[in-house]
C-alpha cells in the first residue's frame, strides 16, 4: 500500500483546508458521516488484537464527535486510526523507550563534543598537557570522541534491537491492518 501523502493531500484539500476545517462546527462533520468506525470490521480487530503487547493496552476509543477531521470517507477513518494508535499504551511504550534512550544520549554526546571543541580552541595549554609519552590530553580527548561514538552506536543499536524492534513491528502490522480495513471501501 502506498503511503498516505498523495491520497491525503487530495482529500485534505488545497492550501487553506487545514485551517478551515478547524473552524468548521464539529457537530456538523460528525452528522455528515455518522461514525464509520463502529461499523467497520477494523473495530473488532482493534478490540481483540490489542492488549497482548501491553497489560493496559486497550486504547480508549474516543467518541467520534470529539475528533476534528474533515467530513468524508476514507481519510477520516485513516486519521482516526493513527490517533487511536498514538493514544494506545503499546505505542506510548515504544515512544517512551525510544525517548528515554535518545534524549539523554543526544544531550550527553552533544555536550561532550561542544566541550571538546570549545576546550580545543580556548584552553590549548590544558589540552597540551602530556599524558604518556608524546600523547597529550588533546590526543586522548580526540580519540575519546571516537571511542564514545562507537560505544553509543553499539548501545543504540542494541537498545533498538532488543527493546523496540519487536513492539514497533507488531504496531506496524496492526496499524496497517486497521488502515487497510478503513480504506478498503473507499479506495
Amino acid at each position, binding site marked *: 500500500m502506498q503511503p498516505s501523502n498523495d491520497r491525503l493531500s487530495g482529500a485534505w484539500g488545497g492550501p487553506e483546508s487545514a485551517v478551515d476545517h478547524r473552524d468548521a462546527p464539529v457537530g456538523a462533520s460528525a452528522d455528515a458521516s455518522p461514525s464509520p468506525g463502529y461499523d467497520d470490521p477494523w473495530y473488532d480487530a482493534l478490540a481483540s488484537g490489542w492488549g497482548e503487547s501491553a497489560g493496559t493496552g486497550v486504547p480508549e476509543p474516543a467518541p467520534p464527535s470529539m475528533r476534528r477531521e474533515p467530513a468524508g470517507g476514507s481519510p477520516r477513518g485513516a486519521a482516526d486510526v493513527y490517533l487511536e494508535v498514538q493514544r494506545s499504551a503499546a*505505542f506510548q511504550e515504544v515512544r517512551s523507550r525510544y525517548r528515554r534512550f535518545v534524549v539523554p544520549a543526544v544531550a550527553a554526546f552533544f555536550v561532550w563534543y561542544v566541550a571538546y571543541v570549545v576546550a580545543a580552541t580556548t584552553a590549548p595549554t590544558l589540552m597540551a598537557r602530556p599524558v604518556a609519552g608524546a600523547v597529550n590530553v588533546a590526543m586522548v580527548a580526540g580519540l575519546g570522541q571516537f571511542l564514545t561514538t562507537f560505544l553509543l552506536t553499539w548501545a543504540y543499536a542494541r537498545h533498538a534491537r532488543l527493546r523496540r524492534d519487536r513492539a514497533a513491528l507488531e504496531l506496524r502490522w496492526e496499524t496497517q491492518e486497521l488502515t487497510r480495513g478503513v480504506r478498503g471501501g473507499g479506495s
Partner: protein
Amino acid sequence: MTGDHQTLALLLFSTFVAVTLAITTWVSRKRQGSAEEFYAGGRLFSPMENGFAIAGDYMSAASFLGISGLIALYGYDGMLYSVGFLVAWLVVLFLVAELVRNCGRFTLADVVAARMRERPVRIAAGTSSVTVSVMYLVAQMVGAGSLVALLLGGTTEAARTWTVIGVGALMVIYVSLGGMRATTWIQIVKAVLLLGGTVTLTALVLVRFHGDFDRLLRTAAERSGHGEAFLAPGLAYGGDWTSRFDFISLGLALVLGTAGLPHILSRFYTVPTARAARRSVVWSIGLIGGFYLMTIVLGFGAAALVGPGAVRASNAAGNTAVPLLALDLGGGAGSTGGTVLFAVVAAVAFATILAVVAGITLASSASVAHDLYASLRRRDAKPRSEVAVARIAAVGIGAVAIALGLLARDLNVAFLVGLAFAVAASANLPVLLYSLFWRGFTTRGAVWAVYGGLVPSVVLVLLSPVVSGSPQALFPGVDFQYFPLQNPGLVSIPLGFVAGWLGTVTSREVPDEAKHAETEVRSLTGAGAV
C-alpha cells in the same frame, strides 16, 4: 612528477571509469523507469551494501586529501575535522535515519510535507536542498580540478577546465542513465577502493615506525619544527578570537550538517525498512570511523616522513600530502614501488570525487523533479514523467556546478565543504527535527525554519571574507565583507531554529493533531512505509 606516474595513474583511473560505466549499463539494462527505481534503486539494497554506499558518499576527497594534509601542516588542529565528521553520525543515527526512512519516500520534503500544506513546504525544502547540493558539488568540482593539476604535473588552465567539465559530464551520464542503482554501486566500488588504499598506506606507515604510534608522533613533532605544539590544538585556529569562533562555528556546522545533507538522507530510502536503515548507519559509522582514524595516522605520517616543508612546497593547502606520502612509502621518487603507490592513490582520490559528485547530482535532481517541479508546474499542464524531469534536472545541475566550480577553483576544498555543511545544518536540520518531534509545528513554522536558516547562511557567506575583502577571496578586487567569520554556522544554525519556532507561535493555524499522530506513529513503527 615523472611521466611514469602520469601514465600509470591515468591508466588506473581510466580503468575505474570503464568499470563504473560498465556497472551503469549493466544495472540499467532492465530498468523500468519508475520513480522508485530511479530515486531509490528499488529499495532493495542490503544494510551492508548501503552502509558501504553511505560511507562512499561521505568520504569525499576533502577528507582523504584535505584532512591528512591539514594534519601534516598544522598537526592536531587538522584532527578536529576528523572528530566532527564522525560524531555527526550520532545525530543521524539517533534522530534521523530510521524516522526519515519510515516517513518519507524520496526526499527531505516528503517528511515535512506529510504534516503540512504541501506546496509551500515542498518549494522551501526543495530550494534549500538544491542550494546545499550545488555548494557541495562545487567543492567536489574544485577538488577534481586541483587533483588533475597534481596528476598531470602542469598547472595549465585549459587542462583543469576540461577536467572539471569532463567530470561533470561523466557524472551526468552515470546519473541520468543509471539512477540510484548505478550510483549506489559506484559508491560501493569507490568505498572499497578508498578503504583498501587507506588501509595499505596506514599499514605501511605503522610498519615504518615498527607499530610505535608514540614514535610516529614524536618524529612528526620534531620534523614539523613546532615541537610539542604540533601535537596540541592552536596552530591553525589559536590566533585571535575571530579564528577561534570560526573554528567553533565550523565544529557546529560539521556535527549538525550531516543530518541535513540531501544526498545522505536519500540513501536511507534505498533499503527496505527502518531497521535496515539503522543497520546501514551502524555499518557506515564503523567504516567512516575507521577511515578517519587512519587519516590521522596518514597525516602525522606525512608530517614525519615527508615533512611539512616538502608538503607545503608541493601544494600550499596541503592537499598533496597523501600522494607524496605514498611516493615515499613505496621507496621514494623514481622507484617502481613509489610510482605504483602514487598512481594508485591519485586514481583512488579521483574516483572518490567522481562517486561523490554522482551521489549529490542524483539527490539534487530528485529535489528538483520531486519537490520543485511537482509543486511549481501549472495544474493544467500535462504531467510529464517525474523521472524524465529528474534526468533533465541532473543535466542542468551538472552545468551549474561546472560553471561555479570553474569560478571557485582557487578556494580550499575542505573549507567549501564546511560551507555546504553550514547551510545544510541551518536550513534543513531545524525543519526536519521540528516536524518529526514537535506536536505544535505548523506550515508557517516549517517555511520560516527553512528560509530563516537558508537566507542568513547564504547571505553571511556572501558577506564573509571568503567572497570579498581578502587576498584569497573569490573577488579579491572588491570589498563588501561585513561578517568576520568564514563559516556562518554559529549564527545561522540558531537562526534557523529560532525562525521555525517564531513562525509556529505567530501563526494562527491550529496544528493538525491527526497529522502529527500519523507522522509520529509512522516514524516510530514504520506503518504505511514504502
